[in-house]
């Protein structure tokens, strides 16, 4: 399908990284209608969800694991709207939880481990002969991911200036959550969630 109006091939989507599987954006503006029929509007904020392959062709696509493994982290931001200047400020808030589960994933480490326990996963939707797994999960803080496409350190929330061809100039994206999931022998996927403001 050729370009038609605002459509184009996803393979031609302009983004700063390679190996991107999907990118989706959702925005909303705070709008209120008062009991006295006055329309009030606030800032426009949104989220961007991006999934990608955490390897490049030729690399180990399972990142060194042989059992289902995953890692995730939450990064907290406090949003404050400056109505005088019509600007939304994002302040990093410490304490976002993180966890790792399963085998040790290449490029993933949990800087501060708090609790370790056994977890399991059984899924018979593909038939009763499907395997089920026990795994070890560790919860804590400060997940470090040195892989691609975007390396993160969850203990130090930061902003990113990506998707510059889609978003207005100088729009910062603030990483709010991260997870990587590996399911041998088929796939490994890394997901990023960003929050941002258009005001």
């Amino acid at each position, binding site marked *: 399908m050729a370009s038609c109006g605002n459509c184009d091939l996803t393979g031609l989507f302009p983004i700063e990284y390679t190996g991107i599987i999907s990118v989706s954006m959702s925005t909303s503006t705070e709008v209120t209608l008062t009991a*006295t029929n*006055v329309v*009030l509007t606030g800032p426009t904020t949104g989220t961007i969800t991006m999934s990608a392959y955490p390897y490049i062709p030729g690399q180990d696509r399972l990142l060194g694991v042989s059992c289902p493994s995953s890692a995730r982290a939450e990064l907290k931001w406090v949003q404050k709207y400056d109505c005088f200047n019509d600007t939304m400020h994002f302040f990093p808030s410490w304490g976002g939880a993180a966890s790792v589960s399963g085998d040790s994933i290449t490029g993933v480490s949990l800087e501060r481990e708090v609790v370790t326990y056994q977890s399991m996963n059984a899924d018979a939707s593909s038939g009763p002969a499907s395997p089920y797994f026990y795994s070890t999960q560790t919860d804590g803080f400060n997940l470090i991911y040195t892989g691609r496409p975007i390396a993160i350190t969850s203990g130090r929330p930061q902003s990113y200036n990506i998707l510059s061809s889609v978003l207005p100039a100088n729009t910062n994206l603030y990483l709010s959550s991260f997870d990587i999931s590996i399911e041998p022998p088929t796939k490994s996927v890394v997901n990023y969630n960003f929050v941002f403001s258009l005001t």
Partner: protein
Amino acid sequence: MADAFIEALSYRLRTSGVVPGGPAGGGEFILQTFGAEKVTTRVWPSKTVLLESDDMRGLGGDYESASFQGSNLRTEGGDFSFSGQAQLPPDFIDENEIPGA
């Protein structure tokens, strides 16, 4: 519609405490009332201009008390929006004028 308000009415009986009445131990009580107060409260869901000192009673205005807070919302005209309420001095009325009394 900007700065339009809604009026809410509230009533308060002027009364002392309940006192025993009738035969001792009879379980009857008497509530003595001395009229009632009808209080008018004006509520602004959105107000672009705050009240000023001379809107208050004692400085030439009508209101006995007021409370407003700002929000992160603006009107279509781009004005800041405050929400809040102000209370007028009570009207003294007869108990029988209270709805439902």
